[in-house]
């Protein structure tokens, strides 16, 4: 299922993530050695920090936070910390991190090394979920190559947190490293830096680090020359759903949604695109030309999220598929916070009734009330994502929802799902 849809051979001066050699020798031949300065060289650090800032790189793991700002926060928290490579990719519809770690692990690890040097962190921890042994093996292999050649500065290791959606959430991952419990931590002030014990933590998504590695070597120029001025660079998007060639593509930031979806060859006209992941937003045909960039997406109430676009064809049922996603998200919560632990299953139940055409007249009002009640009341943003997915579904599939709530489900509501789930989701 996972394939790179990048047809042309890569050019050295153009910023791109896919198509690089995956072994250490090829990596060094293409990119040169890891030019990380000795610990006392502060001018190198400042130069790297300003390159990152000038590049305008934002996090590719869902937050979209400027990478330079996150790094500055971690730097201010002291030395001796840890760089965490978030390779959890809990999103079932996402494959980009998988791809990067098997095809270009050295890029990712180099990115972590640059940031470790910048923040004076002394170790790098790559988090790959249990069960994904092929990926863990690829990374371990790459680390082995680096150790054998004395290539890297900070120590690198792979750890295996549990394979659950919530386990990839920032605070849950840090909490797991600290206490073995994969549970998000409530932070009243989200600006406080994450910590492991007393040491600071810099946590970044796999893809973000790959970009960092290239920016550190070639400066911000090549990155900025792609994408939009307000939102530069490239990003990886996994396309799935009613498409003939699902997979991961690398696109310039700001490419219209429809162009991205087209690269996977939809099998029929598309009635909706789920953008940003299962906790993202449905986008209707009116907005298919929206550029894939945070600012533009925000104007239609969406966000780039974790680099996922799911195309829903005409002969699918938006209500049923949304109901399945809602059920999946409800099952994947940590169970710590009442509104999420009780609210998401209740919302999933309402949607399931709607999908089966068994709903009574009050269900839409009840659903809206529950969505408002659950939003923002968890320790993490898991419930917010579920709410945003459902609220956008109510808008994009409004006609279908109306029919279902009258007890007239569409003919497609019983067809098998076109979405990916780790285990079958019953309706």
């Amino acid at each position, binding site marked *: 299922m996972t394939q790179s849809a990048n047809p042309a051979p890569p050019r050295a001066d153009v910023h791109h993530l896919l198509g690089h050699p995956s072994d250490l020798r090829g990596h060094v031949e293409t990119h040169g050695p890891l030019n990380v300065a000795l610990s006392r060289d502060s001018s190198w650090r400042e130069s790297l920090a300003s390159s990152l800032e000038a590049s305008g790189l934002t996090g590719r793991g869902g937050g979209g936070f400027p990478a330079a700002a996150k790094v500055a926060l971690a730097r201010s928290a002291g030395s001796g910390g840890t760089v965490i490579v978030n390779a959890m990719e809990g999103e079932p519809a996402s494959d980009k991190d998988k791809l990067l770690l098997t095809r270009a692990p050295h890029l990712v690890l180099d990115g972590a090394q640059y940031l470790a040097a910048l923040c004076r962190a002394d170790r790098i921890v790559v988090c790959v979920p249990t069960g994904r042994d092929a990926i863990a093996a690829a990374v371990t292999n790459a680390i082995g190559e680096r150790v054998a050649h004395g290539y890297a500065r900070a120590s690198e290791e792979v750890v295996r947190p*549990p394979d*659950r959606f*919530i386990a990839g959430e920032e605070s849950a991952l840090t909490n797991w490293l600290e206490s073995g*419990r*994969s*549970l998000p931590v409530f932070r009243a002030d989200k600006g406080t830096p994450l910590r492991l014990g007393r040491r600071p933590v810099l946590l970044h998504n796999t893809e973000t680090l790959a970009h960092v590695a290239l920016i550190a070597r070639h400066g911000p120029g090549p990155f900025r020359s792609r994408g939009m001025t307000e939102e530069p660079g490239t990003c990886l998007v996994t396309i799935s759903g009613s498409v003939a060639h699902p997979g991961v593509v690398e696109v310039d930031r700001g490419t219209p949604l429809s162009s991205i979806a087209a690269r996977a060859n939809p099998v029929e006209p598309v009635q909706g695109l789920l953008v940003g992941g299962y906790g993202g937003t449905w986008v209707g045909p009116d907005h298919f030309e929206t550029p894939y960039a945070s600012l533009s997406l925000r104007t239609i109430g969406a966000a780039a999220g974790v680099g996922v676009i799911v195309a829903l064809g005409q002969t699918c049922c938006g209500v049923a598929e949304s109901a399945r996603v809602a*059920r999946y998200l*409800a*099952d994947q*919560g*940590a*169970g*710590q916070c*009442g509104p999420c*632990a*009780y609210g998401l*299953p*209740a919302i*999933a*139940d309402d949607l399931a009734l709607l999908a089966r055409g068994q709903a009574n007249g009050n269900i839409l009002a009840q659903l809206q009330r529950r969505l408002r009640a659950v939003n923002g009341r968890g320790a993490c943003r898991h419930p917010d994502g579920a709410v945003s997915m459902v609220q956008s579904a109510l808008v994009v599939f409004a006609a279908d929802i109306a029919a279902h709530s009258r007890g007239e489900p569409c003919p497609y509501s019983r067809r098998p799902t076109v979405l990916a789930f780790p285990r079958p989701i019953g309706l």
Partner: protein
Amino acid sequence: MNSTYLWYSTRTSGIVALILLTVTMVLGLATTGRARARGWPGFAQQELHRRISMMAVVFLAIHVITSVLDTYVHIGWFAVVVPFASPYSRFWVGLGAIALDLMLAVFVSSLLRARLKPGTWRGIHWLAYGSWPIALAHTYGLGTDSREHWVIMLGAVCVLSVGLALIWRLNSTSKRRGMLPSTVPDAVLVSRRYEREHEGRSA
């Protein structure tokens, strides 16, 4: 002071302290089990529990002070807090000292609650569950009045009330307000809520 007055005061205040401790236990079990008396807000129930426990401490203080001041039998301040240090009825008085120590720990930790981590306070509070049966054993083991019918009846009522409250409390966790979530998460995730709600059900 007349030894007889001290002696009667000790016994009376001891019985009263035991009753108050029993009521405290029942209220405590009811509060965490989310019992709701009609017209009574939950925070008032909790306040009642706190105040009755403070009254129990007052009567306990009277009980302890009068028993030490009474020179008819020698107990001494040391034996009040250090178990099994009393020359008089070493074992049963010792049990009393243990019960007192536990209650003192709960009392002091509650005063300092704002400064303790929530887990620490709760852990110490659990000691209260230990102090009640030990206090009961101390009362009946010492034997002063324990052959009297009314005292035996009283003991039976205390045991019955706490027993019933305990059974009710253990049962009530499964009837928590709200819908139960539709799946139980993996064993690797430790969530307090799930631990309590799915007691006995394997994850």
